């Protein structure tokens, strides 16, 4: 007998399926954050000595690098799940383009949440290892629980925002392989061109729009709107695409 299915039900099933099937994305997250953690332990140091017999050394610890690596990870992950094998495996089971995209977005949201959370938390791992294993005397910038929450929320907004960029880029590449070449050329080309014209890089101005925003509310609005627009555009494009298995 033919069975009726609802979009919501299908999205739920696809989402559950992807959380199981894309488990490798999570292990690569652990790997990438671990590498960033190792870099963080050694990185950010500077020193100065004088002839008077003094040598000063300064080391900064923070999870900044782990967060940056997490950005890269989500970007690559978002592009990866738009590629053919991943799209095709959706269509081995029940789906349409809409449920495929929506479940992808839900997956990216979950991945972003996990990535942002572990990235911000890794600061404690860094400071614990620095103190107990590297026997460092630490000055620790105070952070309140509320600030920690801000850190996680903002990291989540950033990571999810970057995932939408990755998903959009991946979608464009699916339309035409030429975008895989065109996009890096435009990005790097604009940097070079602005450098050549001796003016402030457009791309930096674009990024400052987000990174220099000091109002939490405005920042959330900016990133969420951008994220929504990019995902919406991706869905619109993918919705017309054939799945050539």
């Amino acid at each position, binding site marked *: 007998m033919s069975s009726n299915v609802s979009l919501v039900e299908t999205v739920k099933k696809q989402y559950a399926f992807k*959380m*199981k099937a894309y*488990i490798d994305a*999570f*292990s690569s*997250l*652990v790997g990438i*954050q*671990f590498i960033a953690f190792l870099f963080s332990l050694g990185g950010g140091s*500077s020193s*100065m000595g004088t002839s*008077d*017999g*003094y*040598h*000063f*050394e*300064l*080391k*900064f*610890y*923070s*999870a*900044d690098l782990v*967060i940056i690596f997490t950005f890269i990870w989500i970007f690559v992950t978002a592009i990866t799940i738009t590629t053919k094998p991943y799209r095709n495996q959706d269509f081995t089971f029940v789906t349409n383009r809409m449920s495929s995209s929506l479940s992808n977005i839900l997956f990216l949201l979950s991945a972003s949440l996990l990535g942002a*959370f*572990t990235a*911000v*938390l*890794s*600061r*404690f*791992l*860094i*400071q*614990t*290892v*620095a*103190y*107990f294993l590297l026997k*460092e*005397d*630490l*000055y*620790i*910038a*105070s*952070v*309140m*629980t509320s*600030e*920690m*929450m*801000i*850190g996680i929320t*903002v990291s989540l907004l950033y990571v999810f925002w970057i995932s939408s960029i990755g998903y959009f880029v991946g979608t464009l590449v699916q339309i035409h392989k030429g975008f895989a070449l065109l996009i890096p050329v435009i990005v790097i080309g604009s940097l070079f061109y602005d450098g050549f014209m001796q003016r402030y890089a457009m791309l930096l101005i674009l990024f400052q729009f987000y990174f220099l*925003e*000091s109002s*939490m509310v405005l*920042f959330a609005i900016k990133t969420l709107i951008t994220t929504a627009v990019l995902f919406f555009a991706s869905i619109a494009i993918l919705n017309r695409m054939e799945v050539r298995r």
Partner: protein
Amino acid sequence: MTFAALIPMAVIVALPLLFFIVRVKKKVTHWLLVVYIGVLLLSVVAAFFIKSDEPEITDRPRDDLYEMLYSGEIYAKGSNLLLKEDSFPIEGEKVRVTSSYGDESSSVYIERKTEDDQKMDVLAYGSFSIAKLDVAEEIVLPAVQLKDETLTIVYPEYQKLKTSIVMNEFTIEQFTGNKKYNSEFQIDGPILLVRIPPDLEIEADSTTELISIDEWK
């Protein structure tokens, strides 16, 4: 951050984690993730046992030590750069200064007091900071001793000073105000100012160069 404040956070983390463990059949990849999150949570707890200071940015005006010195006003104006003060009673009429400072000679600044109080004051001035953190207190200063009309200055061994700061992440600082520490260093001094009564005779051996600051005033 108090321990109690962390409990809700730990619960928020642990709940989805437990859900995840119960729901999904375990594989190596799952264990990897579970172990990783477990380690992160443990480190949050371990972070409470770390004894540390919150870095307080020095409010000491970062005066130029040498400018004050060369204008002869260091004693008058440099009280906030004063790190150590020794005072020795003088018995004879003559003091010899000797110092240990490797192969080179060291400089000692001499200032004559206007009144004879039968005392020799040895003051150490300096300005030391790393990333705006005042580290002057951690500096080992030259040891000074007056015995048998000889002022002996023993300079410390080569000193290494290491400072580590755990910063807040940029995703926090973007909204809580920039607490970012720069990586500036300031290593000025230490210089020794020896204040002596007006008519005390002072001489130094080859290890030490005496510089009178009186004529700079």
